[in-house]
């Protein structure tokens, strides 16, 4: 599995690029909203879950790209994410995102953890938009490489690396398969994603841990209602592994609205529940999620 996915992605990258080269100018050819928004790790999707949709508005004869900034503000923490992504031939997606996680409550008020995430996604079957006469969803496989850049603000405790909190590694891979179906008849978008992961809090607390170091397959689900051509709203759920003794990690949830006034700009607002983050602060972390995307 680990070798097959990168090989497939590499082969398809060459194929998709050759195909898209036929038309090198971005065509903005897809339907509004059908590139999704930028999820918190930079991939095209919902707020917290990667979808099978390929980011951007480039049709299968073209390409497109976008940039995003996302900010989540809970009682005691802030999470920022910004990045860029390219969609090629409505087939292949490349994304790059930087996350910064900060604490605001003593003794973690100086806490600062940074992470880089590189993502690749390949559509392998189906079409979420056209196949309205069939139950077949659009299916994509993806990979995310996560590199934790270390912990700041805990110098007094001598903690500078996630491994000191029990993580086995400070970098690693997530693999996922996602299925997305737009049901125009019901004005619904449904997504189910299965992610094979060892990441703690998406990788912000490292990869693998003292309690568990094996890969776990975790379900992620999104359901959205298409209120108008430009406005969608829904809920998401993302289950996560529990690998660290110092973090009683829980699932993420959110309820969101996404507004697409044009194909160049979208804004997503959500109420997110990130569960409790580390045993040092057992309070459930909830708060506002805001994300903006600009692109073509």
């Amino acid at each position: 599995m680990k070798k097959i996915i990168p090989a497939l992605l590499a082969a398809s990258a060459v194929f998709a690029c050759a195909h898209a080269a036929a038309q090198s100018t971005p065509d903005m050819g897809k339907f509004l909203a059908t590139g999704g928004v930028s999820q918190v790790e930079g991939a095209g999707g919902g707020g917290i879950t990667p979808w099978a949709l390929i980011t951007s508005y480039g049709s299968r004869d073209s390409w497109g790209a976008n940039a995003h900034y996302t900010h989540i503000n809970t009682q005691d923490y802030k999470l920022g994410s910004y990045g860029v992504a390219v969609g090629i031939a409505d087939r292949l997606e490349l994304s790059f995102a930087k996350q910064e996680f900060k604490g605001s409550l003593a003794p973690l008020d100086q806490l600062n953890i940074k992470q880089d995430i590189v993502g690749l996604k390949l559509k392998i079957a189906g079409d979420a938009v056209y196949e309205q006469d069939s139950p077949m969803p659009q299916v994509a496989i993806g990979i995310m490489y996560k590199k934790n850049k270390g912990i700041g603000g805990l110098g007094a405790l001598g903690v500078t690396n996630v491994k000191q909190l029990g993580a086995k590694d400070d970098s690693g891979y997530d693999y996922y398969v996602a299925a997305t179906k737009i049901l125009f008849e019901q004005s619904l978008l449904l997504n189910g994603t299965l992610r094979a992961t060892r990441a703690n809090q998406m990788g912000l607390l490292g990869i693998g841990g003292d309690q568990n170091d094996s890969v776990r397959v975790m379900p992620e689900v999104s359901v959205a209602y298409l209120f108008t051509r430009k406005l969608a709203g829904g809920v998401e759920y993302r289950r996560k592994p529990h690998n660290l003794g110092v973090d009683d990690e829980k699932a993420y949830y959110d309820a969101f609205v996404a507004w697409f006034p044009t194909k160049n700009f979208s804004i997503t607002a959500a109420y997110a529940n990130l569960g409790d983050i580390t045993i040092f602060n057992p309070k459930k972390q909830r708060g506002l999620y805001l994300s903006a995307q600009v692109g073509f």
Partner: protein
Amino acid sequence: MNKFIKVGCGLLLASSLALAQTPYTDDSVYQGLGGKEGIKKIVDTFVPMLLADPRIKDSFADFDMVQLNVRLQEQFCEFAGGPCKYTGQHRDKTMDGVGTVRDMATVHQDLKITNAMFNALTEDLQIAMERNNVPTRFSNKLVAKLAPMQRAIVTK
């Protein structure tokens, strides 16, 4: 993994060979579009948009737009479960003295329609329905019937 892809491709192929779209069996979508009068207004808004849309207007150069208007009304009405019969008969100016009628696939085969063009047309239709105050839950139901026609229409 290979098996999974084969099954996926098999499903994809099967779905692309599926029969033409069947209309809604009750007339709630037809009523939602505003009945015969509402559909006429939508198409009267829609057709000038096609001719003004730089992404697709050239494709209609040889079309008899009056006839296209009538055919679209018939087709939307039938798909929506209304009391109409889409005759499916298109004639274009280039066929004068040559043939009689063509079906959905043959009428489009020489036009080199891309996905982007198909999507542009559908987007214009969505906007035409918005301008005529059709609620999204009904306009999306019409889009659900039209979207699979991409397989017959997109030839490039």
